[in-house]
């Protein structure tokens, strides 16, 4: 094993930073100190304790993991099936141009391909970040629901109380269940969302009652109802009433 002094690690924030370090040949997998990576990571975790942004922390850990994985792969004995010539070439050239053959060192193609694909989007990300900031201070005359963050989730005409009372009617019609065994239905929410989508897709909209034609048991009714709430929360569907005490109608959120 090479006797390289351990390089002091640059703080790694995202895969992007890692890619840059790669590009400049700053990080040789063998010279990365696992201890440093862990120390930096712990330090970063402590720093963010006040404002834990899980996405940020996740990205950070992912980057740290990538570096450590690269090192661990380098430490393993080379695969017999790997290209012997490339290995010999590296031996012959020695350390003279260690910086320039950094790409060779990193011929971990899967990782490189991944970083490539990821990097391709970085210009776009910069552009979006710039526009996000610039357009934050531009207030449109009309504040559409999609921009207004404070928008109530259920449309004003139909409140949760309406939905619950409509649900009660449906439940009263649903037959009692045998409770001799508890059926395992882990995917009921997803299924319910799927079935609501397909009912709406048929006619472009659906009445509240139509959503519950298929489910016959009380637990299925509840599942479909929860699925409806979830779809409302995700703003995939809206509920409305065309008149007081009229049918509750569910439709997809229109694309404006």
């Amino acid at each position: 094993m090479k006797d390289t002094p351990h390089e002091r690690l640059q703080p790694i924030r995202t895969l992007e930073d890692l890619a840059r370090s790669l590009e400049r040949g700053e990080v040789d997998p063998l010279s990365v100190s696992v201890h440093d990576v862990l120390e930096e990571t712990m330090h970063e975790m402590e720093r963010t304790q006040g404002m834990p942004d899980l996405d940020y922390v996740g990205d950070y850990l992912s980057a740290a993991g990538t570096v450590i994985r690269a090192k661990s792969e380098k430490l393993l004995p080379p695969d017999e099936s790997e290209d012997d010539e490339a290995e010999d070439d590296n031996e012959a050239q020695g350390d003279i141009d260690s910086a320039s053959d950094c790409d060779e060192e990193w011929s971990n193609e899967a990782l490189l391909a991944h970083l490539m694909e990821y990097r391709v989007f970085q210009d776009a990300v910069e552009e979006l970040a710039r526009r996000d900031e610039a357009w934050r201070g531009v207030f449109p005359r009309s504040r559409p629901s999609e921009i207004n963050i404070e928008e109530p989730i259920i449309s004003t005409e139909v409140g949760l109380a309406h939905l619950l009372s409509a649900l009660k009617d449906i439940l009263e019609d649903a037959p009692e269940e045998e409770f001799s065994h508890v059926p395992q239905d882990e995917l009921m929410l997803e299924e319910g969302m799927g079935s609501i989508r397909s009912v709406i897709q048929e006619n472009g909209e659906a009445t509240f009652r139509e959503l519950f034609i298929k489910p016959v048991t009380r637990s299925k009714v509840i599942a479909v109802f929860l699925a409806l709430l979830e779809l409302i929360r995700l703003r995939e569907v809206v509920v409305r009433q065309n008149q007081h005490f009229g049918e509750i109608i569910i439709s997809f959120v229109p694309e404006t």
Partner: protein
Amino acid sequence: MEYSEARAIIEALIFASPGPLSPKRVGEILDLDSRTIESIIRDIKDKYHRDKSGIQIVFVAGGYEMTTRSEYADYVAKLNVGVRQTLSRPALETLAIIAYRQPVTRPELEKIRGVRVDSVLNTLMERRLVRVSGRKKAPGRPALYSTTSGFLRWFGLASLEELPPLAQDFDSLGF
């Protein structure tokens, strides 16, 4: 119809429109060809500019829309009109990938970003920047995600074509 009248009507239409008003829609209402409409709107925009108005007309998501000028953002914000938060880096990255690769499934997004995106995706859906546009014809029928017109308005983009072109080849990335 006199020019000044047409100009006043178009100004009123843009003011009252619940979202970006497409030139096509103006044409349907006023029976004018698109070139005339565009030149009239340019005229209105120039007028606002000359008067140093606090209002401007921008072209976003395929239509014209009245907005305040960004110079006065600090004052307008005091109205409590709900100044939005800027998006986090992971959210921007996820959005960028969706914008270029749409319609795209969650596993495809996660493969590129290298991390799970479900919470980010939920945030983007709640802000209506992203929507489920369909289901992929693959096992499990995974949801396909696309950007919305709200996405274009959020970033002040006339259309998706306004995004910078993606770096195509290996060399341009400096590897």
